């Protein structure tokens, strides 16, 4: 990872090389001022020095820090160029230093009149000059490239295109047949047909859900201390369904923040509201309720701030924001929106609410009635035998000890009387059939009832009092009590009286005049299609974040998105563009001029996300169980990995059957100890909002792909496929492995390398059958009896090599 500051600099370099003629406050000046000056001369009134604000032009002019047109008279210039350590700004103790070129820029900016601009992200969305229906993504990208005298790269070949689309839209590789079809399809709309087909697959919803679940920090455990399980997986399935049905993003937003507050809320809307329950919670003994109420309140504000607003509201927990126009009061007022969410501050959250559909409820009622009926029938019959109990007591033989003991008593208490009666009735031969009928009905009812899932959902109640906590200190109760309200800096027309609700908050996020939500979401979807955002800082569009590389394009897309909140349309717009379809191959002339590929003169390439690495291996091996949704599962995990968990101590039990072969996103998500083969590929713990996963390249990843039972078993299944479906000869089978895994045939050289490898392994495994058998017993999948162990081991070993190739886990 390159530090942000370096990235920022590179970005500036690119920008400057184009437009050296016009200075832009937002692009050129504000990043310098924000990073170096605003902490003491910015929005935070408590830290402000010398009553000077440099984020506010009026104040800066009033205090003579800036005299427009006259850098020589501007105190700012005097101070930044001073050699006196008592005078120089930033002061030495700030450990900030302006470069010569930064100083020059500031001087030039003042000389040119010190024009300020409002921060790009906080101003209303702007239709661009070219904002006509026919303006496309490519128009904006190409226009920008043209300024650099650059052009898009040529379109990628069809194999690359179908792999790229399949990974981006479904998180899975294409089958060889799909590749063949697409390569051969000569119709002019072949590409669009493919896009439509992939977006119609249920796996599209799974892929999009992985992105969303990172943001909202979905997990299957509570996070803190004991990290016990919590049941929210129906919410995960709700997210998948929502993307698949192309639920408008405004509805999606409302349901998550406030589905429970909608009139006659449907089951789906209530499950959506589980969003408010996803945060980390605790059951740790000795935790103080007030402390955790405060923690949860701040957690929720941080998350809403990150997910929908793309700003770092979290800073305002302790002080007014140092860079952005948010106050501590804004932070706690935001927290007050969630004060009605009913939950224990400390302790078990319980199983949640049963999610019976109306049909299921009716069914349950019918089953209950059947049980009642059977009980009645039995009781009626048993009544006939009650008079004979006394007689039975005298003659009964071979009784259980406890019953015998009761019989010997002189006086029986009610429980003993009951136990005896129950025993007597349970032995009457004449009622046996009726008893069995009842048992059958009860079993049917219970089986049905346990199939109805539960989920933590939001239940609204009496709101807790929310105060401003001075310096974030929950013990300090001197702060002002606040009511729900959105940050003062933005217009708000959606608040209801007397107390604004989460529904109002959601509507405010979605209001046309809200400048953030659409920009932030569009930017993150852009990242899915291009590997990086138009604003590179996906977690921060505020003052300290980077400016968009293509501001007009961002607004163009955001405006379009606001009009209908159509997610599929947005995704399709991006993947249909020529910018998306171009080759990712590096071009020598770009390496120097745009090493970060900000101008998109080529596509980006990157490693698949953790879940998709797994999914891809399972998919090509034929092991993947493609069921959508359901309770989370436990695929292989090394024994003892949970040994540091306690209250209670636990061991992960590997699933059997289908649970071993589901997509990675269904893996039980344990926050404190995330399943380690996912963790190795940078899957986040989901304790906090993750806007961007790391994409590391580590030895642990090699160990996982080489040695984890998941991948060894996948290699065996893949090897078996090669033997059965790949053809007779070694060369045909090698070609089969490449085609299935990489969507292409091996080159002659590659084929030769693998032919040698196959021969060597065949020799070794033929000579040592015990090793062959040992390799084949890894994983739960039964070993086929009809194949020689040495042959299957040879092809397992060969498939294992293919599953470890860089190309296999790379979206190109």
């Amino acid at each position, binding site marked *: 990872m390159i530090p942000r500051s370096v990235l920022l600099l590179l970005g500036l370099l690119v920008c400057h090389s184009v437009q050296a003629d016009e200075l832009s406050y937002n692009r050129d000046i504000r990043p310098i001022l924000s990073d170096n000056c605003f902490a003491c001369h910015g929005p935070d009134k408590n830290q402000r020095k010398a009553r000077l604000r440099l984020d506010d032009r009026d104040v800066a002019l009033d205090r003579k820090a800036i005299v427009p047109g006259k850098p020589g008279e501007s105190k700012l210039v005097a101070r930044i160029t001073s050699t006196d350590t008592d005078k120089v700004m930033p002061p030495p103790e700030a450990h900030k230093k302006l470069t010569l070129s930064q100083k020059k820029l500031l001087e030039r900016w003042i000389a040119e009149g010190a024009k300020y601009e409002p921060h790009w992200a906080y101003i209303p969305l702007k239709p661009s000059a070219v904002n006509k229906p026919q303006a496309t993504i490519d128009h904006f990208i190409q226009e920008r490239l043209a300024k650099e005298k650059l052009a898009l790269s040529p379109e990628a070949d069809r194999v690359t295109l179908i792999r790229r689309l399949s990974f981006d839209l479904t998180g899975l590789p294409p089958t060889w047949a799909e590749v063949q079809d697409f390569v051969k399809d000569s119709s002019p709309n072949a590409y669009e047909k493919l896009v439509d087909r992939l977006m119609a697959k249920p796996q599209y919803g799974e892929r999009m859900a992985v992105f969303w679940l990172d943001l909202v920090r979905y997990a299957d455990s509570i996070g803190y201390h004991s990290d016990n399980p919590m049941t929210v997986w129906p919410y995960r399935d709700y997210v998948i369904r929502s993307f698949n049905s192309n639920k408008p993003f405004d509805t999606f937003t409302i349901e998550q923040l406030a589905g429970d507050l909608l009139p006659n809320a449907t089951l789906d809307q209530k499950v959506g509201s589980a969003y408010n329950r996803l945060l980390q919670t605790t059951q740790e003994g*000795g935790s103080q309720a007030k402390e955790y109420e405060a923690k949860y309140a701040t957690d929720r504000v941080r998350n809403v701030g990150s997910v929908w607003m793309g700003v770092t509201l979290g800073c305002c927990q302790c002080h007014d924001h140092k860079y952005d126009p948010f106050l501590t009061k804004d932070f706690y007022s935001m927290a007050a929106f969630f004060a009605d969410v009913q939950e224990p501050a400390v302790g078990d959250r319980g199983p949640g609410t049963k999610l019976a559909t109306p049909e299921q409820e009716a069914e349950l009622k019918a089953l209950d009635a059947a049980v009642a009926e059977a009980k009645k029938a039995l009781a009626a019959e048993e009544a006939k035998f009650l008079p004979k109990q006394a007689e039975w007591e005298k003659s009964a033989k071979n009784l259980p000890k406890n019953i015998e003991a009761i019989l010997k008593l002189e006086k029986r208490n009610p429980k003993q009387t009951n136990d005896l009666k129950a025993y007597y009735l349970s032995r009457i031969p004449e009622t046996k059939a009726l008893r069995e009928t009842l048992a059958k009905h009860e079993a049917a009812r219970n089986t049905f009832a346990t199939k109805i899932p539960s989920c933590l959902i939001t239940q609204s109640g009496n709101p807790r009092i929310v105060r401003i906590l001075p310096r974030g200190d929950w013990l300090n109760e001197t702060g002002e009590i606040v009511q729900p309200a959105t940050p003062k800096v933005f217009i708000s027309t959606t608040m209801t009286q007397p107390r604004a609700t989460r529904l109002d908050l959601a509507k405010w996020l979605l209001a046309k005049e809200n400048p953030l939500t659409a920009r932030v979401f569009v930017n993150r979807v852009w990242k899915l299609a291009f590997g990086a955002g138009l604003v590179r800082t996906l977690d921060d569009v505020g003052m300290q*974040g980077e400016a968009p590389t293509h501001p007009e394009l961002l607004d163009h897309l955001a405006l379009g998105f606001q009009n209908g909140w159509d997610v599929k349309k947005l995704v399709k717009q991006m993947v249909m563009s020529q910018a998306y379809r171009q080759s990712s191959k590096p071009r020598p002339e770009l390496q120097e001029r745009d090493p970060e590929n900000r101008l998109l003169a080529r596509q980006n390439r990157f490693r698949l996300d953790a879940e998709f690495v797994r999914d891809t291996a399972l998919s090509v091996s034929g092991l993947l169980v493609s069921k959508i949704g359901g309770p989370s599962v436990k695929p292989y995990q090394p024994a003892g990995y949970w*040994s540091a968990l306690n209250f209670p101590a636990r061991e992960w039990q590997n699933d059997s059957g289908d649970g071993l072969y589901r997509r990675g996103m269904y893996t039980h998500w344990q926050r404190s100890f*995330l399943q380690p083969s996912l963790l190795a590929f940078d899957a986040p713990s989901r304790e906090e909002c993750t806007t961007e996963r790391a994409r590391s390249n580590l030895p*642990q990843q090699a160990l996982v792909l080489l040695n984890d039972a998941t991948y060894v078993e996948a290699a065996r299944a893949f090897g078996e496929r090669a033997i059965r479906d790949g053809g007779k000869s070694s060369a045909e089978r090698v070609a089969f492995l490449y085609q299935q895994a990489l969507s292409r045939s091996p080159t002659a050289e*590659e084929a030769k390398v693998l032919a040698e490898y196959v021969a060597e392994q065949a020799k070794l495994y033929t000579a040592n059958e015990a090793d062959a058998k040992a*390799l084949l017993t*890894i994983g739960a999948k039964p070993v086929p009896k009809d194949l020689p162990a040495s042959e299957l081991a040879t092809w397992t070993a060969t498939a294992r090599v293919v599953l*470890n190739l860089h190309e296999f886990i790379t979206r190109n």
Partner: protein
Amino acid sequence: MSLLQRRVFLSQTTRGVGALALANLLGPQLAAAEKSKGTLSYHHKPRIERVIWLVMAGGPSHLETFDYKPKLAAMDGQPMPESITKGQPIAQLQGQKLKCLAPQYKFKKFGKSGQEMCELFPHLGEVADDICIIRSLHTEAINHDPAHTFINTGTTISGRPSMGSWITYGLGSEAKDLPGFVVLTSQGRGGQNQPISSRQWHSGFLPSRFQGVNLRGKGDPVLYLSSPNGVSREQQRDAVSTIQKLNQLHNGVVDDPEIATRIQQYELAFQMQASVPGLMDLKQEDKKTLEMYGTQGADGTFGANCLLARRLAERGVRFIQLYHRDWDHHGGIKRDIQLKIEEVDRPLMALIRDLKAKGLFDSTLIVWGGEFGRTPMSQGGSGRDHHMKGFSMWLAGGGIKGGFSYGNTDEFGYNAAENVVSVHDLHATMLHLLGIDHERFSVKFQGLDAKLSGVEPCRVVREVLA
């Protein structure tokens, strides 16, 4: 030829993968990356090269270890003065009568310096002149989970890098076939093993390669380390070499710098498969050493882990963190803390002596302590609750004043009262010893210059430095 290239070359003599071609491919990129360099150049001359941080998880009582309070003994069973406890955060004693609990053991003066420590530490007492006790720590969280997160990351908010990640990010590591940040855990016999979380060694917003790697006593010492059954070392070599070769061929088509890194990581993984078992094999140690640590071999005890810590230090690992759990003595502290001290006393002495014998003591900082201390007030008549306002830790090693103690709590052992040291002060001091100015060691995160030592002012505790 660089080390790794040589390794590749040597390992391919029999199966002819084309070592030279591979070396060409890796080229200068590998040479640069081979020694995992940090992002910093030293701010000043470092006093130490590495840290061994011994976490006594659960929160050891300072009142039964390093902070003797006669006043508390005199007031045993009497109410704690309300002037001290009023309005203070409290954990499990919420709503209960607060009574003093006398120190459960006598204290003794050890060493030439006369370090005052609990009598249960005869072995640590032998090296009392090497350690510097700080009796005036305080922290910001009163429950285990947030307190661990705070002491490790400098904040209680999840998602921030742990100190081991910060340090390896800043300075890199000298270790060749091992991660730069290693975590070992052991359990106590007392049944108070509070959970810990991998968040405590997570790299947060720093690159994943700076994450702590948990070396395990049972099963694979590093997850997924062993080759699959039925795959010999030679066959694993074959497989890795074939993967490398195919990746290299493909690189000719796609020209992807990540492929060079991938090839390098596969080599490293393959080397780790041999080097880690070697590291864990304590049979290589002589009997005397094993006896000194009080361990039979790699048995997952704190003693064995201390010995492993020395071996990791020898191999250039930058940050070594040991967790010994079971210090959460809400009840029966007299019996249970004795068990704990027994478990750590000898290994602590052994670690200090052994590092000295190996010439590593002066280049290592050892830190001993928990996530917080315990209340002077009794819990249930025989235990102590969590306590964040005052507790003890000790430091030893390079740049540390041995046989010295610093700071004091009040006469009840409640508040850090004299020469108060915050967790951030401790971070700043550790970084200082490593040659890093904590104020200048920051990474941009969400628009902030995030630092291990936080945003509030803090200081290097120069008084404890030699």
